[in-house]
Every structure is written in structure tokens, then in C-alpha cells.
């Protein structure tokens, strides 16, 4: 059940209506917990009648793949509840530390097993084969539970914050369960901190504090980003990345730029809808994007892109590694390690490792650059200000190539033509070097699409649209949203692709 589907609207209408008609906070939380699990189950349950029939008769082999996903979610929640209580009741620092180690080991263990087991085993096998040693590699048929990367990070944030004495452990299991399984952010974030969300769970939400108009507008914008823009440009980048060698330079540029548009609109669209959905239920989620493609440098980019992840990595990984409390080399090591692990968080593939490393190196280079140009003149700074945004965006696009590139197969024989990394290098060549690799190209209208999107994005980033919108009376907003929805529905694909970040 995707946010952009009609059935989600029907589901949310029921959840919303019942939620606000319940009087007590406890009843609301139970309702949210049930709704969240129903939402989660919709991703793998298939036909509910068939599922129930198999469950009743114990036909486990016939159950849909992933029917046990909720068990992982519950196990993670239960374990962190116990850890939280354990830390709260521990009499010595050593015991507190032991409890938090249990939490980290269990959460990271779950993540490593489901996400990285096959990757590490296969990579070890490849390495042994490469150095000439005989290797018999056995991978397991493991499927990744939806949202595991997101909810384990949330779980860990709770244990770590309790350990760091930033918050009290929760008394009731229900509160923690609602926090971790809250459906708007369950499968693809934003990664909400226990410190910011649990106080909201504990306090009864008040309808008067809900900014309905802002939430509906945000949901609409998210819908447009995902359903119209991301889905519209996806076939272009898919075709390009499937055969980068067939395209000329213009085609390559459009292919890569459209992928940058696709991933931003896909993920930020999802986040907007998640924030709006939570907002309509009276909860505030973390802001996740702040016009990242207008970042002036790579450090600025990471303050604007997937903010909930970057701040999580900063607070719980980079600082835990020692942060910048050491020599320059020590700081750079921490930066690189954090970004590589951040890359690996996105998926068990060397593509993501390289992507993370590229960002890590760029962050280090930027720090050095800042140090070197500290005393630069005004003119130099002015020139830099002009080229900073396009240069940063160009580098981001280059890194996306490694993020996106997948193995290329021969269309007819389905035989592997190039591995993911070889494909990435081919794309990189088409995107960065002069000359055409092939003859295929896209229509010139694509450039127009990019220009229009860039202008709209720029106007929005300069806060030229928002204030005007807020000044409008409610009835005018309703009418404009109606007109906007009619326009947006034109570009909605009849069948949607899942959100890109669902796979992480």
C-alpha cells in the first residue's frame, strides 16, 4: 500500500476518522498500533482471505514471502523495551553499558544478517577466488524485511539516548511500540528520534494544533513529486542506465539528470507525504530535505539531504567514533568511515560503498579546501559563490551514477554484459567525457522539463510560493488544490513503481 495509491487514501480516511473520535490517548495508541501493523502487513500479505486460510491450516510453505516480517519488528521493539528498562534500573555504569551493547549487538545483528550476510559471504568468496584460493560459498535465501534499516536505527536511537541519559526509559511497552511501528514513517523514514517522538506519544494530541491546510498541501506536493515527476522521468533514466553505451552525450546528460530528479522527487515526495500524514494525526516528524540540489558545497548538501539519516550518523556514529576530537587524520578517518557505512546502509552492494566513499572523500576535500581558501579575497569568494551550486550539483550527479548503476544484460540472450561497476564507469564516461558513445537520444523537450522543474524548485527555495499560498483564504486553497490535483492526475502512471527507498 503506497501513499500515492487510492487504497491508502481509503485506509487513511478510516484511520483518521476513528483516531480523532477516540477519547483517550491509550485507545488512540492501540488504534494506531493496529493500523500500523495492518499497513505493514499490506506490503506482503497478498489476498487476506488466502493468507488467513493458510495461517489457520498451518500451511507455512504456502504463506507469502515475508509473512514473518512483523516478528522481526516485534522482536526489535521488545528487545529495546527490555534494554531501556534495564538501563533505567541498572545500578552501575558497567551494567548500563552492557545493556546498551546488547541493544546495539542485537539491532546491528538483525541488520547485518538480513541485509549484509549474503553480500559479505559472496564478497569473501570473490576475494578468495581472486587470490586463487578454492572457495565454496553458500549464500542463504534471505529476504529483507520492509523498513528494517529504518526501524532498527530508530530502536537504537532509543537505547542510546536512554543510555546517554538524554531521556527516561518508557514505562509502557505500547508507547515504544507506537513509536517504532508508527505507519507514516515505518517503511522508509524519516528516521525519527525517540527523544523527539516519544514525548508526543505520551501526550494526548489535540485537534486544534493540527495544521490541516499545511498538511494537505504538503501531501499534495509529495504526491506530485512522486506520482507525477518521479514516475514520469523514471522510464528515461531506466532506459539510459540499461544501455548507457547506446546514447549520445545529450542522452547521457538527460539520463543522469533525470535520475537525480527521480531519486529526489521519489524520496522527498514520500517524506512529504509521511510528514503530512503524521501531521494530520497530530504528530510531528523530522524534516528530511531542504532543497539539497541548491547546496553550496558537499557539507551543505549533507545538511539538506536525508537529514534524519545524516544527523543520525553524525550523532550516533561519527561522534561515537570520536568525531573531530583528535588529529586531522583521525577526523578524516571518522568522516570517511561514517560515509562508507552510510553508503552501506543503503544496500549490500559495492556500488553503495563507493558512493559513500565518494561522499566521504568529497567531505574531506571540502574541509581542506575551506582551510586553504580561508584567507581568499572577495573576488575569489564571489566567483566561488557563482560556481559553487552547479559544481556541487555536478558532483552529486556523478555520485548518483554509482548509486544507480546496475549490471547490464544483453537484451536478447540475457547474458551479463557488464557488472554494476563496469556499467557505472560506462555511464561516467558518457556523462563526463566529450563525445558520443552511441546514437540514441531523448527528445529536446526533456531539457525543457528540467528547466521548468529547476525554476519551480528555485522559486520554492526562495520562499516565493509558500507565503503567497498561506495568504490565500481556505476556499481558494481548496479550489486551487482541486485544480492542481486534476493537473497532477494527468501524469500519474496507472501502475506505480515502489518508492526507491523501500528497498533500503
Amino acid at each position, binding site marked *: 500500500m503506497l501513499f500515492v495509491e487510492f487504497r491508502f487514501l481509503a485506509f487513511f480516511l478510516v484511520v483518521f476518522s476513528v483516531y480523532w*473520535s477516540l477519547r483517550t490517548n491509550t485507545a488512540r495508541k492501540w488504534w494506531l498500533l493496529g493500523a500500523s501493523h495492518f499497513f505493514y502487513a499490506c506490503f506482503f500479505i497478498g489476498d487476506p482471505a488466502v493468507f488467513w486460510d493458510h495461517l489457520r491450516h498451518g500451511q507455512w510453505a504456502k504463506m507469502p514471502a515475508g509473512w514473518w516480517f512483523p516478528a522481526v519488528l516485534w522482536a526489535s521493539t521488545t528487545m529495546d523495551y527490555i534494554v531501556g528498562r534495564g538501563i533505567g534500573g541498572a545500578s552501575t555504569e558497567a551494567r548500563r553499558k552492557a545493556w546498551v551493547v546488547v541493544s546495539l549487538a542485537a539491532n546491528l545483528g538483525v541488520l547485518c544478517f538480513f541485509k549484509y550476510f549474503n553480500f559479505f559471504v559472496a564478497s569473501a568468496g570473490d576475494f578468495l577466488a581472486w587470490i586463487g584460493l578454492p572457495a565454496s560459498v553458500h549464500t542463504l535465501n534471505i529476504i529483507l524485511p520492509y523498513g528494517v534499516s529504518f526501524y532498527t536505527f530508530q530502536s537504537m536511537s532509543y537505547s542510546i539516548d536512554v543510555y546517554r541519559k538524554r531521556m527516561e526509559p518508557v514505562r509502557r511497552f505500547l508507547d515504544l511500540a507506537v513509536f517504532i511501528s508508527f505507519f507514516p514513517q515505518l517503511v522508509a523514514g524519516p528516521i525519527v528520534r525517540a527523544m523527539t517522538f516519544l514525548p508526543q506519544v505520551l501526550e494526548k494530541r489535540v485537534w486544534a494544533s493540527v495544521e490541516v491546510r499545511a498538511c494537505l498541501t504538503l501531501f499534495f506536493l509529495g504526491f506530485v513529486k512522486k506520482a507525477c515527476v518521479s514516475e514520469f522521468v523514471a522510464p528515461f533514466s531506466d532506459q539510459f542506465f540499461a544501455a548507457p553505451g547506446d546514447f549520445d552525450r545529450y542522452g547521457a546528460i538527460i539520463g543522469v539528470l533525470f535520475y537525480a530528479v527521480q531519486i529526489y522527487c521519489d524520496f522527498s515526495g514520500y517524506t512529504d507525504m509521511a510528514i503530512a500524514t503524521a501531521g494530520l494525526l497530530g504528530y510531528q516528524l523530522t524534516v528530511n530535505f531542504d532543497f539539497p540540489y541548491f547546496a553550496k558545497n558537499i557539507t551543505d548538501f549533507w545538511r539538506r539531504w536525508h537529514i534524519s539519516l545524516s544527523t543520525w550518523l553524525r550523532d550516533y556514529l561519527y561522534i561515537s567514533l570520536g568525531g573531530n576530537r583528535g588529529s586531522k587524520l583521525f577526523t578524516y578517518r571518522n568522516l570517511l568511515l561514517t560515509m562508507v557505512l552510510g553508503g552501506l546502509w543503503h544496500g549490500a552492494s559495492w556500488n553503495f560503498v563507493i558512493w559513500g566513499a565518494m561522499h566521504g572523500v568529497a567531505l574531506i576535500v571540502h574541509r581542506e579546501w575551506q582551510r586553504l581558501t580561508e584567507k581568499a579575497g572577495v573576488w575569489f569568494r564571489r566567483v566561488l559563490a557563482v560556481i559553487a551550486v552547479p559544481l556541487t550539483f555536478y558532483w552529486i550527479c556523478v555520485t548518483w551514477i554509482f548509486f544507480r548503476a546496475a549490471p547490464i544484460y544483453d537484451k536478447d540472450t540475457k547474458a551479463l554484459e557488464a557488472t554494476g561497476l563496469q556499467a557505472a564507469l560506462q555511464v561516467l564516461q558518457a556523462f563526463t567525457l566529450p563525445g558520443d558513445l552511441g546514437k540514441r537520444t531523448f527528445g529536446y523537450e526533456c531539457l525543457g522539463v528540467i528547466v521548468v522543474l529547476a525554476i519551480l524548485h528555485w522559486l520554492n527555495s526562495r520562499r516565493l510560493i509558500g507565503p503567497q499560498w498561506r495568504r490565500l483564504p481556505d*476556499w481558494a486553497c481548496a479550489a486551487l488544490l482541486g485544480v492542481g490535483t486534476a*493537473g497532477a*492526475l*494527468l*501524469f500519474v502512471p496507472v501502475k506505480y513503481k515502489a518508492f526507491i527507498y523501500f528497498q533500503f
Partner: protein
Amino acid sequence: MPPPDSRFSLRRWLLHWLIFFGALVSYAVLIERWLPYPDVPNAGEKIRYLGLHGNQYDTIFTGSSRVNFQVLPSIFDEALAASGRPTKSFNAGLLGLRPPEQGYFLDEVLKQPRKKLRYVLIELTSLEARAPASRRGSARFMAWHDAPRMALIGTWLRAEWAALAAGFNPTDRHRTHWTELWEPVAVWFSHFGPFCKNTLNLGRGAFLGDRWIIAPGERAKQLNKFRALGEKRDGWLPYDGARETMNDAERAAYLESYEARLTTPAVHFNDPASDAAIEAMRQAVLKAGTTPIFFVPPMTSDRHYLPPPDLEQHMIIWNFSDPHRYPQLFLPEHRLDYIHMNTAGGQVFTRALAERFAELPH
């Protein structure tokens, strides 16, 4: 619903939703006028081709596979030219085209340039509400679900219920039961979803992406291919590619149905929804300043749809489904099954159509 606290007003809430839906539907209806017919294979190509070259045709055929594969405009024009009445005809038949879609497609055809158009020959078939599952959800299926066509489905639902209500008895197992009453409603709902999606133009702008994904030069070449129009670009295609004859089992089945038709004349059934659909098409053609001609292709099916006598007397109807009058149309070597003919049969049928056409007053 949310509790009635300080800021919540149910009246305002409902009013704003009403404004939202009003604006949504009004704007969707407004932009629908500028949207092209969906880029679906065959149907979209024919409409697009008529949009470019519609002015050269004076006669257009429309109907199902029995038109698409069995009416050869080149032979039709040749036969009429030989009889001293030159025509330029176009085959706008489509696989599985029956009312209500037939009426929608006809409207689309009539929207195209048609300076010379004088005759529209329409295959007479009954309204098909229970669409096969394979067709549901396709762009072509979605496209015809507009308000007039939904009204026809509504007429069909009322007729079905009237027939079922006559035999309704919840206690008698041999008569109509509750579940049977529900089935037509389920059919109606299977059209209501596409109607909502179509009214809101869901995904109708996707054709832009489909076009822009191809370079302009290549795009022009692809748009000019018009594969569905056949070699002569007159809209005719041979049935099923290479299949031209029946195998022994098909031949035996056909001959059995043929024998039955020879001895038992076809039953003409009454169907208010089909009557309304046919009348709507007749009116659309008349409104366009052209002459509608209805025809029944040669079939050995035991049930035939024909309009009621009061409607029939205003119409030109040519019934080719009479094996006594048109024996050559029912020869096994001209057939593919009890409702379809092969290319040779199509040629014979087209000549028979041309003969009837030549009889029309100038």
C-alpha cells in the same frame, strides 16, 4: 470524525471538500477536451491517421474484428469504381469493438477532419457490458468510459434487473437468487472505477513521456509507421496474421453451426441497452451530416441483435447473416469459424457490401 473543538467546524470542512472536488472534476472535464485519444495500438493509430488524412475519405466502416479483418477498402473502392460510383473508403474497425465502446470510438472518428465523408457503415452488434478480464484495465478500455457510455451501462443494469426481478424468489432454488441480483451490480461497478479514472484523466498525459523518450527524428519515423493500418494504409489487416483456414475440428464445429442456421432462423433478441447504443450512434452520424448504414456480418450464431421495428424503420440495415440469400459468404473455404471469415471470405463479403452500396440512391 474529529471532535467538535475550538477550530473544527463540520460545515466548513464539508464546504471546502465540496469546493475541492468541484474544482477537481470541473478542471478535469475542461482539460479532457484537449487530450488526444490514448496512444493505444490500432485504435490510437487509426484516430491519429484520420486526424491527418480524414478529409480524403467519403465512406468509413466501423465495427469489431468482423469489420477490421473482413472489410477491404481497396476492394470496396475498386468494385464501386467499376460500377461507376467511385468511393474512397477507410476501415475504422477494431478488434472487439462493440457498444458502448463502438459509440465512443465512432464519436472520436467523427471528431477528425471529414470534409468529404458521406456514409458511415456500422456493424450491428449488441452492447457488451461483461467485458473479458483481459481487456479490463487497458488504456483502450479506460478511454471509452465517459458519461454517455456510463448511462448506457446504467440502462443495461436496469434491463438486467428488470429481467431478474421477474424471476426473483429468494426461497426457490431454481429461480433467481440474491447472488444473481448482485452480479449485474458488480458488473456496473467494474465500469464505475474506469469511469472515475477516465473522468479525472488519470495518466492521460503519459503519452508525452512516451513521445519524448524518443529523439525527434526517430519519433517522426515511428509516428508515420501506422502499422495497424495495413500495407495500403486503409485500415484493413488480415485476420490473425497468417491463419487463413480452419483445421478439421474447427471445420466440423463450423459445419454443425451452419446446418443449424440453415434449418433454424436466427432469433432476434430485444435489448433496451443495445437499442439505446445503436440509436445514439445513428444520431451521432446524422448530426455529423452523414448517412448511417448498419449491417450484420455473416455469422452462424443462433442469436442476432437487430433493433426493434420502430427504430428499424428509420434505419438502413443490411443483413448478411442469411445463408439462404448469401450462400457464398458461408462456404467453409471462406470461413475461420462461425463468426469470422478469412481473407478470401473478406473479399467476397466486401464485394457483397459494395453491391448493396451501389444500390443506394446517389
